[in-house]
């Protein structure tokens, strides 16, 4: 009903516009086209000026309306660099924006057609043109300089003491692998992937580095203040590890591992206080179109203290033991959950 109503109004407005248009055509026929043209020229001149004034007010109001909703303080060291670069660029471009838009609409208004003005024949001026080649060039060089300096800091090698986490995207969820006590991720091969038999990551069980690797889904735990290097991959199509609060992003490409590193600055708890939102969680979004579930490909991240993290990791059974229950010294106790390894992990995550 409402749809119908809206459509009816649209049609009505349409008809009215058509009638006005036809009528004004006749009017200008009677008045003389030249006169009608001059009149509409003045009206449009005023409208351009109005557009400038209301436009600039609108820009200000829009900022008041929405600025509180863009992310607050960045939650990683790299995020600070990104934000600083962003605000410097914002300052520079704002100045250019206001100057050029004002010039554009002001000139249009001021130099609208008038009987007592002749256009000024002004085909070129080499000095002016040189000035406005050189000034943007210098400004941009400065921005590029800062940008590349930060870029190398962010993309440079991770610190030696960084912890390593493997992140793998698939339609439509996230998988994580922790290297365990040895600090080394065991080898894997995609043809060994076999989720039903407890090997969703395709780990090669003959590699001893795999014995202590822990596999979890959907939720990643990180330690506050400790650099982390993510080793990123994908199983099926390209995904993208998007971490808005850390201002980090990296594609997850099947067949070509990628990496990124950063240092989380605040625990999840601290962020809850900072944002005043008790439901706050760090979210991991898939930022590369990956199929019909792309929009819901959500993971979460818990940033916590070292002790909390250690306790959490200790509560997880290495995937080697999940897949090979016969190797598990405590097999008897856990036999129920070991029979259904995937289900238990998923269930655990739901509870978290």
């Amino acid at each position: 009903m409402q749809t119908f109503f809206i459509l009816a109004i649209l049609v009505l407005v349409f008809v009215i516009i058509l009638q006005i248009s036809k009528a004004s055509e006749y009017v200008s026929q009677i008045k003389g086209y030249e006169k009608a043209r001059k009149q509409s020229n003045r009206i449009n001149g005023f409208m351009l000026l109005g557009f400038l004034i209301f436009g600039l007010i609108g820009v200000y109001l829009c900022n008041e309306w929405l600025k509180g909703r863009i992310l607050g303080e960045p939650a990683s060291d790299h995020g600070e660099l990104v934000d600083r670069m962003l605000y410097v660029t914002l300052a520079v471009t704002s100045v250019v924006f206001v100057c050029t838009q004002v010039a554009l609409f002001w000139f249009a208004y001021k130099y609208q057609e008038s009987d007592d003005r002749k256009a000024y024949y002004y085909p070129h001026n080499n000095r002016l043109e040189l000035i406005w080649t050189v000034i943007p060039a210098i400004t941009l060089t400065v921005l590029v300089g800062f940008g590349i300096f930060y870029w190398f800091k962010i993309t440079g090698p991770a610190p030696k003491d960084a912890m390593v986490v493997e992140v793998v995207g698939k339609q439509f969820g996230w998988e994580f692998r922790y290297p365990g006590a040895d600090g080394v991720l065991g080898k894997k091969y995609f043809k060994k992937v076999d989720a039903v038999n407890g090997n969703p990551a395709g780990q090669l069980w003959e590699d001893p580095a795999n014995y202590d690797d822990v596999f979890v889904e959907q939720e990643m735990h990180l330690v506050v203040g400790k650099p982390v290097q993510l080793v990123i991959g994908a199983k099926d199509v390209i995904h993208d590890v998007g971490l808005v609060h850390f201002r980090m992003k990296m594609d997850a490409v099947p067949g070509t591992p990628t990496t990124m590193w950063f240092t989380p600055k605040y625990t999840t708890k601290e962020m809850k206080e900072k944002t005043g939102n008790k439901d706050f969680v760090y979210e991991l979004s898939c930022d590369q179109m990956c199929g019909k579930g792309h929009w819901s490909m959500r993971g979460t991240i818990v940033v916590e203290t070292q002790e909390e993290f250690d306790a959490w990791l200790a509560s997880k059974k290495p995937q080697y033991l999940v897949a090979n229950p016969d190797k598990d010294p405590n097999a008897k106790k856990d036999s129920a959950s070991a029979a259904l390894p995937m289900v238990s992990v998923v269930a655990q995550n739901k509870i978290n």
Partner: protein
Amino acid sequence: MSETLMTTATVAGQATTHHEEHGHHQESFISKYIFSMDHKTIAKQFLITGIVWAIVGGLFSVLFRLQLGYPDRAFPILETFFGQWAKGGQIQPEFYYGLVTMHGTVLVFFVLTAGLSGTFANLLIPLQIGARDMASPFLNMLSYWFFFLASVVMMSSIFVNTGPASGGWTMYPPLSALKQAGDGQKIGTDLWLISMALFIVSSLLGGLNYISTILNMRTKGMSMTRMPLTIWAVFFTAILGVLSFPVLLSGAILLLFDRNLGTSFYLSDIVINGEVLPNEGGSAILYQHLFWFLGHPEVYIILLPAMGMVSEILSVNSRKPIFGYMAMLGSLFAIAVLAFLVWAHHMFVTGLNPFLGSVFVLLTLLIAVPSAIKVFNWLTTLWRGNIRFTPAALFAIGFVSLFISGGLTGIFLGNSTIDIHLHDTMFVVAHFHIVMGVASFFGMYAGVYHWFPKMFGRYLNNTMAYIHFWVTMVGAYLIYWPMHYQGLAGVPRRYLDKSGWVNFNNFRDLDQMITIVTILVFAAQLLFVFNFFYSIYKGRKVRSQNPWGANTLEWTTPVNPGHGNWEGDIPEVHRWPYDYGKDGREFIPQTEPVSANESKH
């Protein structure tokens, strides 16, 4: 001649079938309006096909904006029209992604490439350089019909059972390479690739023709530096297209092979829905290089013709020469060269080598310099003019405003440090819609309003034109300006419902506002379409040969030029096209010899 025509007619098939029984005298109708080799008719064919596609593509955006603005509302009317695709009146994810993909493809390639270049290169090259037609009218006709075929294939893909391609307009593999990855990755994607291949053939035929016409068929006295900037712009556009489209063709064909012949150009290490695929050794990123090697020049293919027309229209309507003709030319040239050297700025976060990334940062921000020069020159062209706000002039002014806004956000994105945060967010969507989508549309509208009298011998209705302009101008800013904030907040693009997210779900009011404005702006475009077709038949007749008081050659032809354009000899050219307001004279056409006591510039 007409024999060749008829064979082509029979080969191309579909368009002629319903005329068959009319017999002999239909030939002339067919050769005049359908398989025409007159560049002016071909231009109109491109334009009208482009308009049809623009309506389709625009309608798609209205549909997916409904979903974005009202993710949990049901619109039963959608189910009536689209059945299972909008079950319960709600747009299903597969449908949403199909719509987005088709919207992007159609508007980027079919409207703003074919519809824009095809129309104005065809119309203006012979008319403005003083030629009777294109170098090869036959190839020119083929160019349109390949475009038509591409259109038929693309349109048919919308109606297949599993839906159209839905991998985004960039069609990245492995998503687009794997039939298992979703419904849109089935036959729809094959049709998409075939259609694009046909489209590329059309584009190459057209482009080669434009280049050779401009180089070889200029009238006496029309040296390269006496050409209007419109011609320079379509010239560089054609060169960009000829050099970059073949790369996309190879990318698309390799993708077809990967999909259908079991090759592994883009595929490696894939496990999909639990199924392990045998492919090893391919590179998914290779496709992105091939795509963006076209993709970035493509955005300038879309923009340059608009820039050219805006330059011309601003000059004519300020009654002043374009400021810095040589600088305009130089910056067009610089943009055309740099356009080939920045493609990887779309790939900063694909795992690209950071050093390589930094080189692309430098080259990308370099391209902002010629862009800035152009803006300053347009501003100076307006300065101390005597400006007439024809609808074309308003759209040209609007173009400059939008180009400034969108160019400045490019400076954020071109800086890889900031792009880490903004890549694939709504910020990018806002950036390219303003700078490319809306700005090029403004250039196109400016062109249509300005040259409609030449195309059809009538004027468009001014009142409707002004309403069209103001609604679109205000609407475009209302839609895209606040969208930047969503991007700054990190909201990813192509998210059809954000209610499951803690950090992205605080823009509901904004999304609704944008949706409502989208519908109004779409309605204003329909008003334009109405005006267009209405005025072809009912518009005020053009009585003066040169209604805008312009210098260029197209206004020396009869009001309704026939095949061959000029009735007598082609006029000779004696000066550049921008002698407006010189020595106290309103304008001095290019055909007027330079008199002895004229001042120099």
